[in-house]
């Protein structure tokens, strides 16, 4: 019987996973070195502080605080794990958004704008369809305003979620159309549509009636969706991880990742998208409608970023700061490192998203418990992305090492296999 390990190593997928893991390790190493240098240079931190910092970066979600003696304690921290899953939800979806665009050869740097479009649509729908007996209806009643129609809670949720996706899709389709019809660089078009979205969303909320006037401390914020009684069901996850913000949204994100995986890998449409990605004009020559596919790919990418916004705001955990014309949501940009770390594989995006979110939690713990701050985890992410830029090189190195090891027992190369290998290499080089 053949040893399964070498054949597993031979697979391109395995090499991608290995390359990603190596990137992660080097990224963590870079973070560790920074912690060490800063610790050594600062008298107040000392070696104990350095050791604490390194442990929190690696085991952030299992940190439970400090004991009476002042040393770190570790254990099951349901709050941190739950918040990790909650924060992973939008990042997984923006990661998917970037990944599916990458598959079509497009760099979707427009996820922040699509996220904002989704935010606006979701909040407008969720707060404009009154739910019977909600705080909002009662407050308006106290102001002498009665609503003629009210809706069941779940109808509003579904409408707001789908609305968010649709708005994101429209916003994503704009750079797609510009690229397909006028051949405008999608990076520039996305940057422009991002800022246009930031200004339009600010404008829309500025003139809206959704600004929080009930709570005096919340000036500049929109109502939470729970004001209208709308929130994503917890599905018992809050019982499992008490004290955290987790809800059913993470399951929807995972479901969407599986759907994207099926679309890309198991359908003709997905094959056409990938064909456009590897060579747009070659695909056109083969009878694939490249223009239509570029627009559709960007629209799907946009809808995923919109879904990220929908799930985040429909959680009812946070309120939206509407005066956002000067900044773009970081979660949109964070989709880029997530997609890159996952080598644009939809299922890999789930793990990459959870990993990024774990680093975020570790960053918060670093700020709370040590002299370091959360930006060290951002440095780690940046290093990982930097390495992702030449993941192809890492993969080739991995391949080379394997070949050398196998050179002795298997000197005869099957010409057919070599041909396929070469074809694969050419494809990889085209990407």
């Amino acid at each position, binding site marked *: 019987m053949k040893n399964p390990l070498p054949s597993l190593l031979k697979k391109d997928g395995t090499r991608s996973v290995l390359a990603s893991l190596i990137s992660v390790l080097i990224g963590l190493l870079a973070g560790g070195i920074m912690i060490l240098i800063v610790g050594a240079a600062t008298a107040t931190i000392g070696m104990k502080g350095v050791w604490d910092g390194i442990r929190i970066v690696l085991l952030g979600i299992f940190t439970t605080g400090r004991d009476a003696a002042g040393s770190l304690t570790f254990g099951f921290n349901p709050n941190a794990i739950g918040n990790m899953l909650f924060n992973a939800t939008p990042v997984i979806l923006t990661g998917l958004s970037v990944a599916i665009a990458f598959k079509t050869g497009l760099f979707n740097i427009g996820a922040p704008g699509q996220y904002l479009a989704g935010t606006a649509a979701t909040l407008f729908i969720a707060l404009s369809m009154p739910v019977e007996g909600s705080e909002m209806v009662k407050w308006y009643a106290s102001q002498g305003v009665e609503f003629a129609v009210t809706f069941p809670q779940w109808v509003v949720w579904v409408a707001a979620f789908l609305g968010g996706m649709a708005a994101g899709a429209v916003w994503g389709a704009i750079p797609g159309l510009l690229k397909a019809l006028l051949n*405008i660089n999608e990076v520039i078009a996305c940057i422009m549509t991002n800022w246009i979205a930031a200004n339009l969303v600010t404008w829309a909320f500025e003139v809206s009636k959704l600004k929080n006037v009930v709570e005096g401390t919340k000036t500049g914020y929109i109502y939470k969706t729970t004001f209208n009684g709308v929130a994503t069901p917890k599905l018992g996850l809050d019982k499992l991880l008490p004290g955290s913000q987790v809800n059913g949204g993470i399951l929807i994100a995972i479901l969407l990742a599986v759907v994207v995986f099926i679309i890309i890998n198991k359908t003709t449409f997905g094959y056409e998208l990938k064909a456009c990605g590897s060579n747009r004009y070659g695909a056109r020559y083969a009878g694939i409608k490249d223009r239509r596919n570029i627009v559709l790919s960007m629209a799907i990418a946009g809808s995923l970023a919109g879904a990220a916004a929908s799930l985040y705001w429909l959680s009812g955990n946070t309120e939206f700061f509407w005066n956002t014309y000067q900044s773009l949501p970081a979660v949109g940009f964070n989709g880029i490192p997530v997609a890159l770390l996952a080598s644009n594989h939809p299922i890999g995006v789930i793990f990459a998203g959870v990993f990024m979110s774990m680093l975020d939690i570790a960053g918060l713990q670093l700020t709370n418990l040590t002299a370091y701050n959360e930006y060290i985890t951002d440095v780690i992410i940046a290093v990982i992305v*930097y390495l992702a830029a030449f993941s192809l090189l890492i993969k080739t190195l991995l391949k080379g090492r394997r070949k050398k090891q196998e050179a002795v027992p298997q000197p005869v190369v099957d010409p057919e296999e070599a041909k396929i290998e070469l074809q694969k290499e050419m494809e990889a080089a085209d990407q």
Partner: protein
Amino acid sequence: MSFLIRQTLIYAIPLMIVALAGVFAERSGIINLALEGIMIFGAFIGVLFVRLVQQWGWFEAAYKAKDILGLQSFVFLAMLAAGVLGALFSMLLAFAAINLKADQTIGGTALNLLAPALVLFLIRLIANQNTLQMAKGDSASWFMLKESMFGYGVGRGVNKTPSMGFLGQVFVNKVFPITYVCILIFVVLAIILYKTKFGLRLRSCGENPQAADSLGINVMRMRYIGVGISGALAGMGGFVYAMTTANCSSDGTVAGFGFLALAVMIFGNWKPLNIAGAALLFGMFKCIAASYTSLDINGDGVYLLKNLGINTNLYRLLPYLITLVVLAFTSKSSRAPKAEGVPYDKGAR
């Protein structure tokens, strides 16, 4: 009117010089998406330089004596530091893109992520807050030219000397002289790129590196130089931005100016003169959006733009919208360097 022109220049000059940074990289064949990150890094270095030198007390005497030349050379040194470190930072991109033949878009994105993370990490350690400021005073009192320095508009009542005329108001009063240094650098580098042997060689590497190589040009070296100049310009642009619009402070962001510069570069069709025009147009709209309510264009006391009753948000999004529309109309004639984004492989034909 003088206010509009002055303010437009303040917005336009960082854009212009950073867009030229993009040109140098792309003309040599490397897409520099990291302009934003390098700007952030340059802004941080420049502000840190000013802060440290202030703490050492080196230019204290010059400040007390109101020595214009001394203070301006101080700020010039800070800009130089930002440029040198910006060039050094951009070597990360150059190494990945040239030696490792990495994906340049992703490499640039990595630098865009790295710069704010690194900068904020250091700022938090240095200042124990999220903004790094000057050690004392503000940018206006230290580095800005004022008409009173030249004896205009001084004193009170009948003894007050006359104000500067129109040209003085536009080009001298309330102006940071480093912006003129930037214009000078812009002009000199544009000439170098188009009128010298070196410029021709650099551009050939962005069009047809194989042909350039066959003629004895060291493509890799040229690309390193292109990215290095690009990094230096972006670093300086970042510092100028921090100096003129952020009161010489650094907080890990340049409000998307690096990306805007990228758009200005494409808008300007990779040509310096067009870029200068595009940057001025952009700067004017930025200025109008920021101050249209108090803008008196022809000096008759009527706030024309305010009276039009158009929403602020429309003014704010106009520059982006106009860029998209102009790109839509000019995309057919737009011509990027042919070999940009393609790693140079000696063996390829």
